[in-house]
């Protein structure tokens, strides 16, 4: 449906319809409507209000850098190789932004990437990655170690 609309407008205006988004750091970015339509939060607003696309739509939780990455990912049809160039921080920022923007395909894609990243990683790596503080009591920690020893004897020690 979105494609037909986009193509129609293409034919009418001889140019791709764009929506202006305003990022948290105050940058106004013109984004193709087909990409914007993947962002449920913006799409629902546009559809309900039939808003004037020249008025910037504010995205207070997404930086211009993160939005750039997301646009590139969508344009590249979720290219694994491109995703691999992301730093851990960028990966997390895209995850949080994808959740905020409610982009289902992107969320799925990035969940896979993060799951792959966590594979065979030490507890310390995971704590660092998510910035998690170890909040176990010594008793709880001992209990988990005991259970895991019992469950998977060959579980790698960190």
């Amino acid at each position, binding site marked *: 449906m979105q494609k037909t609309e986009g193509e129609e407008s293409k034919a009418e205006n001889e140019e791709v319809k764009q929506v202006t988004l305003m990022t*948290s750091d105050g940058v106004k970015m013109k984004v193709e409507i087909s990409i914007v339509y993947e962002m449920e*939060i913006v799409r629902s607003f546009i559809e309900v209000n039939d808003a004037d696309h020249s008025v910037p739509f504010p995205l*207070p*939780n997404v930086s211009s850098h993160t939005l750039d990455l997301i646009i590139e990912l969508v344009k590249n049809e979720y290219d694994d190789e491109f995703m691999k160039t992301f730093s851990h921080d960028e990966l*997390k920022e895209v*995850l*949080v932004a994808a*959740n*905020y923007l*409610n982009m289902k395909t992107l*969320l*799925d894609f990035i*969940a*896979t990437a*993060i*799951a*792959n990243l*966590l*594979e*065979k990683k030490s*507890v310390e790596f*995971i*704590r660092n990655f*998510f*910035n*998690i*503080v*170890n*909040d*176990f009591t010594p008793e*709880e*920690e001992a*209990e*988990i*170690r*005991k*259970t*895991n020893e*019992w*469950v*998977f004897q060959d*579980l*790698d020690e*960190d």
Partner: protein
Amino acid sequence: MDNISSDPFDDTTDYISNNPFDRTTDDIESRSVLLTLPEAIWQSILERLSPKELAGLCKVCTFLRDICRSDRLWEIHVEKKWGGVIGDVVYKEWKLHITTAKEKRNGPLYQQNSENGSLGSFSGTWPTLYLRSYLDDCSHLNSSLSNSFMMALYVSLETGKFWFPVQIYRGLFVREALVRYDSKSDTFRARRQSGGWHKVGSNIQWDKLRAPPIDMPPCDEYVSDCLQDLKPGDHVEIQRRSRNGIPYGRFLVILLSQLSDTLATAGAIGSSQLLMLSGIGPAKHMKAHGINVVLDQPQVGQGMTDNPMNLLVVPSLLPVEVTLVQTVGITKASLNQVVD
């Protein structure tokens, strides 16, 4: 969606002022990455991880431990690996084991409890008692793992502690047995109970196993009232089951099913009759009775054997140690005839 706050001075303010040296603002901001993500997002990341990795993630923090032990995640793994061989009866049995374990843990006898195993439910009457499942060792259920139904089930199956009921294909027959998994060889070991434990086999492959199609103890006869629904082309199989009340007696049961629904079962004589009535058997014999022949199988109804047994009751004035039935002597002649 709106749980990521744009206001830097919301509920974290108190935390900062109360613990000025504890954590920096940076820490709190990035911690929020983890804590504000909805559970659905965590779910979509974690459901892509293997059981082993989920268990590993339990060591990270309490938040991840609780989420990584959730039934929703482990249900996927239980279904994926065990779905084909465990049926409803296994879940019922597992509920029993886990409830017993919890009671043991909370009970006063927990400390001095020396017994490691756990028995499932029984069916039948003595001396033909059938144990429907058991755990070799349930010490792991004394921990908080017993609160995670699916994860505990998965690991008990994986580690081979849980003997559960299945049906095993052996040549033409399907027979009931309890099996446990051996993760090293990726095969199963099977036992059968009939007047004591008998080894049925080891190194049994996955494709020889299936979940029992109906939830029924091996000693019970299943009576069906939908015989008239049978038609040519229906799946027919032969099951070997023990007869109720006689520990050594075995007889054949014909199981006719449409898709996976069991329709009918019968005993040693009834089986042949049922097959012939459905048009499977010696063509000549069936034609004589006006039955349409579906398959000419001259073996049906031939070589019938059964195990008659005499019971001798001797009243005793002294208490007698209770044992299961044992074979005390076999004659040479009968040994030559033993065919299993």
